[in-house]
């Protein structure tokens, strides 16, 4: 009997399995209610909503999610985490998306381009958190 073809391309399957491994979250539990996007303080800066980001991951598509920079703009405020009716730790999902990029030795910020007055003025905590989140 011929095997049933998987709707997800093997390369994409590898990517979304990696996201599941890093995040420890099962995106298939999401029922697409959109609460995460409604409460997200950074959603206007993302290419599309977090809800759509999860939908793409459910279908094994990671490229659009990377292009929408959801991981890059997530501020880890955890508002979506406490609001998700399905108990998905959405911040961990998009942390995994961010890590997926960072682990290819790609920085999401160039420290050398931070303005000098910001360097002088900003508190240590600002740099530690920025570099932890956005550099490889």
């Amino acid at each position, binding site marked *: 009997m011929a095997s049933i073809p998987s709707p997800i391309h093997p390369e994409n399957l590898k990517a979304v399995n990696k996201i599941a*491994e*890093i*995040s*420890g979250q099962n995106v298939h539990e999401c029922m697409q209610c959109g609460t995460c996007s409604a409460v997200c*303080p*950074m959603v*206007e*800066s993302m290419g599309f909503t977090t809800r759509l980001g999860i939908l793409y991951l459910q279908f094994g598509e990671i490229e659009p999610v990377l292009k929408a920079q959801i991981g*890059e*703009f997530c*501020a*880890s*405020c*955890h*508002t979506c*985490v*406490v609001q998700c009716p399905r108990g998905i*730790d959405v*911040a*961990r999902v998009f*942390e*995994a998306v961010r*890590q997926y990029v960072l682990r290819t030795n790609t920085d*999401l*910020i160039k420290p050398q381009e*931070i303005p000098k007055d*910001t360097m002088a*003025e*900003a*508190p*240590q*905590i*600002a*740099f*530690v*958190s*920025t570099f*932890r*989140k*956005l550099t490889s």
Partner: protein
Amino acid sequence: MKLGYYPGCTLKTKAANLEVAAMAALDHLGVEYKELSRWNCCGAVFSLADDDLIHQVAPVRNLIRAAQQGCDTVVTLCSQCYNTLARANKMVREDEEKRDTLNRFMDEEPDYNGEIEVVHYLSLLRDEVGWEKLAEAVTNPLNGLRVAPFYGCTLVRPKEVAIDTMDPEILEGFIRALGAEATTFSASRECCGSYQMIAHPEEGRDRAAKVIASANRSEADALILSCPLCEYNLGTRQDEVIEYHPGLNQVPTFYFTQLLGVALGLDPELCRLDLNGPAAQELLIDKKFIATAAV
């Protein structure tokens, strides 16, 4: 309770105005504590990647230092330090495999199994001192001052380390104990822009603007916070935020501990108001809570 104080990276320099009055207030209120003699940066943000155990070493090592110094509880002032240490502690307590890996990795250290309690300074005031006793200790009540309580993210999220319920009252209780009035402030638990102020300043300013607009609408005289990153986004960069978002009004920002120091009648120099913008001191002079500006 054997209480240790963990300062964190920013409180000895840029956020000295969060620390100095807080420590003097503990002495004033008769709460015994000792500052940890040895500590390292907590990492500022809790690692959310399930396979990234190396970033748990820094916070856990601080908890080991506290245990070594005979403490059973560690208090922090910075919201992010609180969140990072409390979540790492929870992970150690609940995840046997990760705890074992961490202990074996740090084989030069004594094993740590989650013996330390991590608390935020506000919880300490509420639970160990109590609002009534605090109110009794106030000699310079901040009557007539309308204060917007800003929780931000890391004091109240995620739920398992939140210092209060999903509808927090702790800062409001604190404000009332000082004789001031807490405003109802819809953005009180929203993101201030966080580290995005460095990475994406435009988006960071937009976030800060929403918080300032909400504080303005609540007719607050002042905004109080407990995180040096919130203070940077909402205080240090406030003039710039207003420049990009005309229509907003200036609202002086304070660390909650500075108003505590003023209300307890501590030496104003201990409140380090010199590290805030000039508007903060002008407000307190105008309201006759302090006599002269610190330099």
